[in-house]
């Protein structure tokens, strides 16, 4: 490698995602007319440039690199229409110049990054150097918003299993701003210039000025002095960051040298890079040698293009790879190209007002005019040539929001962020998962749903016996598997709608709508595996590993069934088994049993082998039965949950009578029914179930009633028990005259205070009775009291008069003391 100085190379330092930078760069390129354009970006993505510059490509787009082994690490290089890099590549394409990326290959970047993480200590210690490095890198590139490394979406919530201790980029940014002294240097520059923040300082000083060659000179001067101010501290405090930058610059120099060696004249080469590196790249002294190149670490990784969205580009989404207001900068870029930059405030504020009007808040044109004037005078106060984004926002708040940010917040967010979503030409962005999804959609005849218009789809999961091939017979079932898998991975293609009761077991209603967001999610799914099935399986195992509650695990079992993933079912069962082993919580156990029971019952229609579920079902049921008595010693509040649990356990007992130990269950219920020291409502419910099953004979039942409703039993015990009893099979209850005699006698024997207490329980018990049932009760009581049945019924089901209303009101304020 020759070490000849290359002072002749033109270096254009930019801030990434800077419309001003893009505008000036284009003019600079027109002037220099280079034969080669070198751009800071992963050198292994140079082959993708032909896709980036295609006419079908609509920014924002991104290059995504990811390790193909777990834990998955990712790096992202986003491009917006106003990225200087994108503008440079387009220019090179138009003018027949060669173009290439010259930064470290993504595999090296990923390797260096994970190496840096390993070296950094865990926990709080990790956060500081990492956060520091990001902010440094960001600001060091003359305020470019986050360089490649920071765009790693590693900490995204999608893959909790693979993440490290890095907080999401957004949060990191915050912490570093308050923490490290170097960052405050940039904030101090902004404060000295009288600006609220660095972004505003940058916009006002570098974006608005369209005088020829001003950008390149001023940015260069600014960043080289910033570099000299920070580099000493960086060498000591952020060693890794410093070393990383040195390696990158050395590699980029090598790239420049290679281009010169390939025959391009140095003065016909333009290098586009972050302004921080501009000074270093002016010569190629210290370019990386072949020997050095070999020592660079590297991991196995893959690279793909993906469509991106302004929402993700903005810091709002927590992705953190971008700038604060992509929609606004896009508008600025357009205005620059049309030569109407000074009209941007008018466009922006009119659009905000228009959006307000759309949402029903009328604002007059006069107010928009005044808002523009105010924004301009705010800019003048800072010596700016035209309003910056903060000025526009503040003017909008004052005039259009009449002082309230909340009025305009939505419209401002819409304008600042925008809804722009990128697109790539067909076939460019093909990760294996995208291929797999396309293939499956075609196979299952779902590709016509791949539109942005929402369409409904009803699936009949039962075998279609009128067709010949098996694939056709189970078409809908396989569709259902795919859609459930997509939902599990988080690809927002389809949403399930609730089905009606009678078809619940075999029908599914879906709403399908394709969106570019779903495309992005599909690309991201490739981080989880090569196919939809593998990605779904891995997502499920991560969820299983993370779940801590029985209910969660049992719902995952259900998900596994819905997705038709038999192999995952076993893992889910193990997870549930492990969680349930220590649980004595009957309510949770019952919820799990109910999920399992559903999975078993619907297993046939989904052609799932549910046999492996049964032993676990049996085991859980046994546990629930054994702990029933213990759990029934609870207060009334907990009893609500228990009543539901007993109900679902009983359903399971009947549905899987062959598998579960029903005898034990009934024995335990009998014991619960006869015990006086458990919650009376639960005892009552147990008694009702036993009656229903015919385990308890009529005489035994009457004995029990009379024992429970003996005179002198406190109201909460007697009436509470009755409330439990009245939960089930009320017809049987109503027809037992003896029972009502007992209840009647019991109530008559209560003292006034006790009676008021009993009323609370009885009222609650009868509140769930249907009107018809109430009438039947009235008839029975009427017979007992010797009143005409019709009259009694009328009294009971008629409207309350005022006095009675008042009495009930008083009852509401009844002091329950300590029960």
């Amino acid at each position: 490698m020759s070490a000849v100085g290359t002072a002749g190379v033109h270096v254009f330092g930019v801030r990434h995602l800077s419309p001003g930078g893009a505008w000036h760069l284009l003019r600079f390129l027109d002037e220099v007319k280079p034969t080669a354009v070198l751009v800071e970006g992963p050198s292994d993505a140079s082959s993708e440039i032909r896709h980036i510059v295609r006419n079908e490509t609509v920014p924002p787009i991104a290059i995504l690199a990811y390790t193909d082994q777990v834990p998955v690490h990712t790096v992202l290089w986003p491009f917006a229409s106003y990225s200087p890099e994108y503008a440079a590549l387009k220019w090179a394409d138009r003018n027949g110049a060669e173009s290439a990326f010259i930064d470290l290959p993504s595999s090296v970047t990923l390797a260096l990054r994970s190496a840096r993480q390993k070296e950094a200590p865990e926990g709080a210690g990790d956060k500081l150097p990492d956060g520091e490095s990001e902010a440094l890198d960001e600001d060091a590139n003359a305020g470019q918003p986050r360089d490649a490394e920071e765009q790693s979406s590693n900490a995204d919530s999608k893959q909790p299993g693979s993440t490290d201790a890095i907080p999401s980029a957004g949060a990191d940014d915050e912490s570093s701003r308050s923490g490290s002294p170097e960052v405050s240097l940039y904030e101090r520059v902004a404060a000295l210039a009288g600006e609220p923040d660095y972004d505003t300082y940058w916009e006002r000083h570098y974006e608005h000025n369209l005088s020829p060659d001003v950008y390149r000179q001023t940015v260069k001067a600014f960043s080289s002095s910033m570099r000299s101010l920070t580099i000493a501290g960086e060498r000591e405090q952020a060693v890794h960051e410093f070393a990383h930058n040195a390696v990158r610059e050395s590699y980029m120099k090598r790239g420049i040298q290679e281009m010169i060696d390939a025959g391009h004249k140095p003065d016909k080469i333009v290098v586009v890079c972050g302004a921080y590196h501009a000074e270093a790249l002016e010569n190629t002294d210290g370019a990386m040698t072949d020997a050095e190149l070999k020592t660079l670490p590297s991991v196995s990784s893959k690279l793909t293009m993906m469509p991106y969205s302004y929402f993700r580009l903005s810091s709002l989404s927590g992705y953190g790879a971008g700038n604060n207001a992509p929609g606004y900068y896009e508008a600025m870029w357009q205005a620059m190209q049309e030569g109407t930059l000074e009209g941007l405030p008018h466009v922006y504020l009119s659009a905000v007002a228009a959006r307000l009007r759309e949402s029903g808040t009328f604002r007059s044109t006069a107010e928009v005019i005044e808002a523009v004037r105010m924004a301009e005078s705010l800019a003048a106060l800072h010596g700016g040539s035209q309003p910056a984004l903060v000025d526009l926002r503040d003017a909008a708040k004052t005039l259009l929001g009449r002082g309230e940010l909340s009025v305009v917040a939505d419209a401002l967010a819409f304008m600042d962020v925008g809804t722009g979503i990128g697109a790539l030409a067909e076939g460019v962005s093909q990760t294996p998962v995208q291929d797999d999804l396309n293939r499956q959609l075609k196979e299952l005849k779902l590709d016509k749903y791949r539109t942005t218009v929402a369409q409904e789809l009803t699936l009949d999961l039962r075998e279609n016996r009128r067709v010949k091939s098996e694939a056709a017979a189970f078409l809908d079932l396989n569709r259902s598997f795919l859609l459930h898998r997509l939902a599990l991975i988080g690809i927002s293609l389809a949403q399930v709608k609730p089905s009606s009761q009678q078809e619940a077991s075999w029908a599914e209603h879906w709403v399908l709508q394709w969106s570019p967001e779903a495309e992005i999610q599909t690309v991201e799914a490739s981080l989880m595996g090569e196919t939809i099935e593998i990605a779904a399986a891995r997502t499920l195992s991560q969820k299983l590993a993370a779940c801590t509650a029985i209910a969660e695990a049992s719902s995952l079992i259900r998900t596994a069934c819905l997705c038709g993933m038999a192999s995952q079912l076993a893992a889910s069962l193990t997870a549930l088994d492990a969680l349930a082993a220590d649980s004595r919580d009957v309510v949770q156990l019952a919820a799990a049993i109910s999920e399992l029971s559903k999975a078993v019952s619907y297993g046939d229609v989904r052609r799932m082998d549910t046999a492996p579920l049964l032993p676990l079902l049996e085991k859980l049921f046994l546990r629930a039965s054994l702990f029933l008595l213990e759990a029934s010693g609870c207060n009334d509040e907990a009893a609500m949950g228990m009543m539901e649990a007993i109900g679902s356990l009983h359903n399971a007992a009947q549905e899987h009578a062959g598998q579960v130990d029903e005898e034990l269950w009934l024995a335990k219920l009998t014991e619960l029914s006869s015990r006086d020291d458990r919650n009376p409502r639960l005892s009552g419910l147990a008694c009702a179930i036993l009656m229903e099953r015919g385990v308890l004979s009529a005489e035994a039942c009457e004995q029990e009633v009379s024992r429970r409703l003996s005179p002198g039993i406190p109201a909460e015990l007697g009436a509470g028990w009755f409330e439990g009893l009245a939960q089930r099979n009320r017809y049987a209850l109503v027809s037992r005259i003896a029972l009502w005699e007992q209840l009647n006698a019991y109530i008559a024997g209560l003292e006034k205070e006790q009676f008021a207490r009993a009323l609370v329980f009885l009222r609650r018990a009868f509140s769930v009775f249907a009107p018809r049932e109430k009438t039947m009760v009235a008839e029975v009581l009427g017979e007992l009291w010797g009143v005409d049945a019709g009259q009694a019924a009328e009294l009971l089901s008629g409207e309350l008069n005022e006095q009675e209303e008042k009495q009930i009101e008083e009852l509401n304020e009844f002091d329950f003391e300590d029960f």
Partner: protein
Amino acid sequence: MNGNEQQLQDVLRLPAEQLYRHELEALKAADKGKVPAGWQMSPQAVLTFITGGEAGGTPITPKYIGNKRLVEMAIATLVTDRALLLIGEPGTAKSWLSENLTAAIYGNSGLVVQGTAGTTEEHVRYSWNYAMLLANGPTPEALVQSPIMRAMEAGGIARFEEISRSASEVQDALISILSEKTISIAELGKEMNARKGFSIIATANTRDRGVNEMSAALKRRFNIIVLPAPSDLETEIEIVRKRVSEIAAQYDLQAAAPAHDALLKVVTIFRELRSGMSLDKKEKIKSPGGAISTAEAISLLTGSMALAASFGDGEIRDADLAAGLQGAIVKDDDKDKLVWQEYINNVMKKRGSDWRGLYAACKELNP
């Protein structure tokens, strides 16, 4: 010292342009910016006057602490000859900001309409000297101009305090003044046209009893800026400290300025009661019915200083603070008293030894 100056010394409260006369003069002398028509200094100099800084070697004290951007927005409004409406909870320095802005821009903060339920349209437009009106009929000499009309004539800034307290029809008299920038005097067949520099700064309360909602038509003619309560403890302590020492100097209170400790306690109590939770956000606290603003913290502390000077040894004691707190927080009804008692017993008691003295003093007043 001439008589006029002597007179000024005796005034209970000096207007801002007198109080900060040397600062304004220094700013004018050092001003290099472009001065808008009708203004006496450039917008940048006005900003320095309000937010503090330095002019030609003279230090400029900050008049409004906290949010510099709001002041910039207020000044930008006045540069575009729009009327400015400052809205905020009671005691968020609306009038204070309005007075200082007027003093800096126009040099006379005395053209004030004070809005009350009894304010009439004559206070906004003009009225007549009835003796002369009866004697000579309508003549220019018989015309009594409102502060707003005088501001129009001079190309200055009029202030409308508590605009939302005046009746809606009185407020509406402003609508045509603000859009046409003229007042027609039908009786004389004349029109009064505003000169360059004319504007109005109005203030209004958001949360108070007895206020009239402003019409949309009027709101549309104002640039509305909402002044927030101080954003953090330190800012509020700084504001209170500064104003207390200024007021104490003005009233010649013979007491030591409150210690940082006392400021911290008072501001903490006020902030907690205002926000309805403890500063660490761990505890929910009931808020009293009335507003508990920074302005009240200031008057509480100056009141305590007066108590200490007149009946004590010049040092603010816990008992003085307790008396002040009692008066500031328990305004009218028994509910406030309960809220305050609850705060004393549930929050203040657990604050440790630093708060012991104040707790005992408050407890004594609320057995």
